[in-house]
């Protein structure tokens, strides 16, 4: 398979402009009509610490961050130390030298381009221009269109004034010159510009906010928490334009309580949090279930348990999302694969919450949260918006009426003649407390059975591949993108491999799982957590006996990891 993509990784100290350099490259590539998938790791410390930004770009669809980098740009010695084990023959390193804080040893077969970034920046009398020097060099070395990059820089810096803009462009040019003075001996280059599709470039968190607003969100309350806070920032910036409301609550319990109040009062409402916040919300989620109040929650998963590894990637909240309440407390759980899903499935989640009058938890994760990706520009017109079923104002109003599909019409406060109570107590059709055993059966059945149509109403789980296979890969969340590439590459090697990529995690489309598994000799379930949480549910709910492949080191899978494991189990 000819290599169509290029992966550039920049590593340095937080505050050295690593992130903005990466952002500029990503934006320039996107502007040039290429596909972009970025991946970042942030320092866990408050300031400083190692920070990494990786841009993968291609003229074809990019599904994940890639196996490793092709080009590594080292801003400092720490970054070099942390990344040198990945310098394999044929890979390229651009580094701060001479005059940086380290002297790299160049392994056999690795191509190294020294660019005196710090020295040049100091000569320009601004340490902060280091990243511009690097950017200029990278542009010249790897065919990242100078014109486009300069457009992007201009857009960014012109707000800050002509002087700042020109200074940065100047530093860029210095870097370019330094690179042009070197002899290029590698073959890596960013693909040529194409006519751009109708795309946007956006991070997972922003995309959740965007999806929610496209989905008709009217009320949002949350408490800040890494890595979910950017969703609140997006909504805070844009919801007032739609005359909607954003509150920063005093804690997560208050935020979901406010959500339920607003939802009861008729507004499409949501919150966003991460594992610790979800844990705190467990009790109130049960109230949403019992009172049948629409409730949409995004959980951007991070490394657990407890405070864990807050800035690290993990997919380990499936247990709490599905089982994390006392009593039998049904809910819908969705999980996104990529940034595009963040938009579309935020709409889905709001729709499902309204349609089924229950909690809907949308799982995202730490690596998607900050991954910027090019996605088709969403259009309001293309989304179907679902609103809660409203009372027809006929007869006596019963909030928990046993209807044919177990979904009872709602009546917002202010509706004449439909006064009723939303309650966390077991209740009869009218909402009055009831411990009658017959009523208990009816209402428990109602809350579960109304979800029986979720599976048929939601789109089928995607199957990647046809016919019989030796191996079927079932995975979820952002690991799907990794699996897609692994499957494609294995297939190219002649292996018979298929993929099954669920987005509706609960209720589980058991028949779809089983039908898929019937076509595969073995089932492998890679996921980024310790116990193999999806494997657990597959074993519990289906007849499939999967091979669980959990990893739990704070990093996403690479395609190669999945390929290697697939070969091992076959």
């Amino acid at each position, binding site marked *: 398979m000819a290599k169509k993509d290029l992966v550039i990784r920049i590593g340095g100290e937080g505050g050295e402009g690593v992130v903005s350099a990466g952002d500029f490259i990503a934006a320039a590539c996107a502007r040039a009509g290429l596909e972009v998938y970025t991946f970042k790791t942030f320092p866990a410390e408050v300031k400083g610490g190692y920070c990494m930004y990786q841009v993968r770009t291609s003229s074809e669809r990019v599904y994940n961050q890639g196996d490793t980098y092709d080009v590594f740009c080292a801003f400092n010695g720490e970054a070099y130390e942390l990344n040198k084990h990945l310098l394999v023959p044929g890979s390229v390193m651009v580094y701060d030298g001479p005059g940086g804080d380290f002297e790299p040893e160049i392994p056999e077969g690795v191509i190294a381009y020294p660019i005196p970034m710090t020295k040049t920046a100091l000569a320009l009398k601004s340490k902060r221009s280091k990243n511009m020097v690097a950017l200029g060099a990278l542009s010249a070395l790897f065919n990242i269109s100078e014109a486009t990059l300069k457009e992007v820089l201009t857009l960014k810096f012109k707000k800050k004034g002509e002087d700042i803009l020109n200074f940065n462009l100047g530093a860029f040019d210095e870097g370019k010159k330094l690179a042009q003075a070197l002899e290029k001996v590698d073959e890596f280059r960013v693909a040529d510009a194409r006519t751009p599709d109708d795309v946007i470039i956006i991070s997972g968190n922003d995309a959740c906010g965007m999806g929610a607003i496209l989905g008709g969100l009217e009320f949002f309350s949350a408490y800040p928490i890494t890595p979910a806070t950017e969703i609140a920032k997006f909504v805070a910036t844009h919801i007032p334009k739609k005359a909607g*409301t954003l509150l920063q609550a005093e804690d997560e319990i*208050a935020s979901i309580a406010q959500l339920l109040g607003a939802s009861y009062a008729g507004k499409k409402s949501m919150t966003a949090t991460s594992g610790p916040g979800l844990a705190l919300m467990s009790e109130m989620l049960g109230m949403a279930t019992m009172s049948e109040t629409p409730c949409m929650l995004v959980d951007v998963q991070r490394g657990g348990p407890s405070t864990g590894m807050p800035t690290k990637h993990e997919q380990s909240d499936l247990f709490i999302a599905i089982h994390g309440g006392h009593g039998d407390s049904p809910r819908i759980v969705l999980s996104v694969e990529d940034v595009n899903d963040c938009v579309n499935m935020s709409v889905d989640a709001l729709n499902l919450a309204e349609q089924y009058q229950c909690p809907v938890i949308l799982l995202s994760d730490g690596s998607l949260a900050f991954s910027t990706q090019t996605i088709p520009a969403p259009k309001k017109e293309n989304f179907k918006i679902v609103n809660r079923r409203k009372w027809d104002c006929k007869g006596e109003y019963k909030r928990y009426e046993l209807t044919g599909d177990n979904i009872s019409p709602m009546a917002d406060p*202010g509706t004449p003649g439909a006064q009723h109570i939303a309650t966390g107590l077991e209740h009869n059709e009218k909402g009055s407390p009831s411990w009658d055993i017959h009523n208990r059966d009816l209402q428990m059945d109602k809350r579960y059975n109304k979800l029986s149509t979720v599976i048929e109403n939601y789109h089928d789980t995607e199957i990647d591949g046809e016919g019989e296979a030796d191996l079927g890969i079932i995975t979820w969340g952002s690991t799907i993108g990794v699996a897609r590439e692994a499957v494609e590459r294995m297939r190219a090697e002649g292996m018979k491999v298929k993929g099954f990529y669920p987005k509706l995690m609960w209720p589980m489309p058991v028949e779809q799982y089983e039908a898929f598994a019937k076509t595969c000799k073995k089932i492998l379930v890679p996921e980024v957590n310790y116990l193999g949480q999806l494997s657990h549910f597959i074993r519990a709910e289906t007849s499939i006996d999967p091979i669980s492949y959990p990893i739990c080191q704070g990093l996403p899978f690479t395609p190669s990891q999945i390929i290697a494991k697939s070969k091992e189990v076959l």
Partner: protein
Amino acid sequence: MSLAALNKVEMKPKEYKSDVSVVWCPGCGHHGILNGIYRALSELGIDPDNMMSISGIGCSSRTPYFIKSYKMHTLHGRAGAVATGAQLAQPDQCVMVTGGDGDGFSIGGGHMPHMARKNVNLTYVLFDNGIYGLTKGQYSPTSRPEMTAYTTPYGGPEEPMNPLLYMLTYGATYVAQGFAGKPKICAELIKGALEHKGFSYVNIFSQCPSFNKIDTVQYYRDLVEEIPEGHDPSSLGQAIDVARGLENGKSPMGLLYKVDKPTLDEKLAEIVTKVGGHKDYDVNKIVDLYRP
């Protein structure tokens, strides 16, 4: 409330009774407070269709069941936070929270300051019986230390809190105190609270004959005294003094404090105005901001 915006109805106090029968013990102070609420609603002519009664868990938190209105019976301690969301969602409706001392100041104590300082436009009526009634008699944050109760067989080790002083400190814009044995005064104070634009708090002493054996009707009757004439409810300083106790050591009954400040919904509406927001804004414009 923005009562002006609401259409008025003509209903007698007893017409505000729902068809759920009241479950409290005979002699419970909560009966008196409920009567005060009915009367206040009637005097203000509040339309039950435009009212939300919201509560947590406790004997007192059963109140919404007994009132004609839209209502939520939520979780222990969370009524205020739920009501904040409901109020912001429907800023023109009348929102009333009812609940107990445990519900409000023990498990719910973390929400109180924020509701108050944000000046959420709702009324909070706290049924203060110095005990956990529903769970059969544990001490609450307002229990006197000499009380032996369920988990304090040898007497309580804690100083009680002062709800009025808390609320003034938190920035509540209407603070009053009543006693269940005086339903007319209760009605008066609740009425004032409902009329008030902003976060209004009414603390009402309420005997629990079943589990609080020391804070009897007579005890409360002796404890309270009407706030002397001449008190200026617009002065926070005076209000704080009164909240700390009348000169003769009694607990004040009446309106301690009332001040006008912008409410949270007003401030949020200002932001919408500032950005020129409206329901029909074309959200595709937001998408456009993310084009490369």
